[in-house]
């Protein structure tokens, strides 16, 4: 059951304001996640205040520090169902949950944060997890 758009609009805007591109259709998802080069972060957004309410600020904080993915995109679970289902097809063995965060490098999932790793945690804690992953996978290779 989708929530009224006016209720989720602020949650969509919170993502786009931090630079994420919102994907609402299957062709948009395929255009971003098919044949990837470099690093792409996919944030599966959710209305759940318990978890997504902490995950969005966590991502914003992580993106403000150090290296970051080449691209940040988002799909909204429970709202844009076809786009979400398509994005999850790219997640390989990782099971669906929302919110969740997948980091791709050259088309392969290299880091995944499930809902259970977000629930009950302070945004700073989730941000640290992301910053560590960005350091590992998004920092330019040293010569």
């Amino acid at each position: 059951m989708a929530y009224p758009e006016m209720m989720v609009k602020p949650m969509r805007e919170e993502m786009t304001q931090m630079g994420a591109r919102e994907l609402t259709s299957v062709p948009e998802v395929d255009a971003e996640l098919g044949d990837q080069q470099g690093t792409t972060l996919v944030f599966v957004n959710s209305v759940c205040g318990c978890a997504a309410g902490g995950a969005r600020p966590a991502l914003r904080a992580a993106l403000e520090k150090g290296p970051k993915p080449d691209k940040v995109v988002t799909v909204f679970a429970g709202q844009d169902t076809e786009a979400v289902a398509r994005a999850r097809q790219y997640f390989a063995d990782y099971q669906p949950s929302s919110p969740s965060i997948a980091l791709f490098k050259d088309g392969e999932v290299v880091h995944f944060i499930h809902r259970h790793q977000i629930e009950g945690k302070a945004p700073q804690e989730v941000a640290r997890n992301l910053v560590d992953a960005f350091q590992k996978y998004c920092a330019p290779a040293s010569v």
Partner: protein
Amino acid sequence: MSGHVFHPGHEELHGITVVVTGRSGRTYVGRYHERTPTGTLLHDVGVHDPATGQSRADYLARTLKFGVRAEQKHVVLPDEEIDEIRKLAEFE
């Protein structure tokens, strides 16, 4: 908007992914919803049955890495089946 909660007033575990150890030997992993008169309601539930041969430790390790493989959308566990309820995150 961050921190906005659509479901205030629920139990502490509401919305949290939990591991329920069953007296039957089964283990259930799912999102805790609430305690009802007929039992505890979980959503998007994966079940480990020792009869499959996979150890519970392996099942939980795989669940931690890849997420909950939900086999049932909703499960109500009667009180007599529940031995223990813990957050999945505690197994990290």
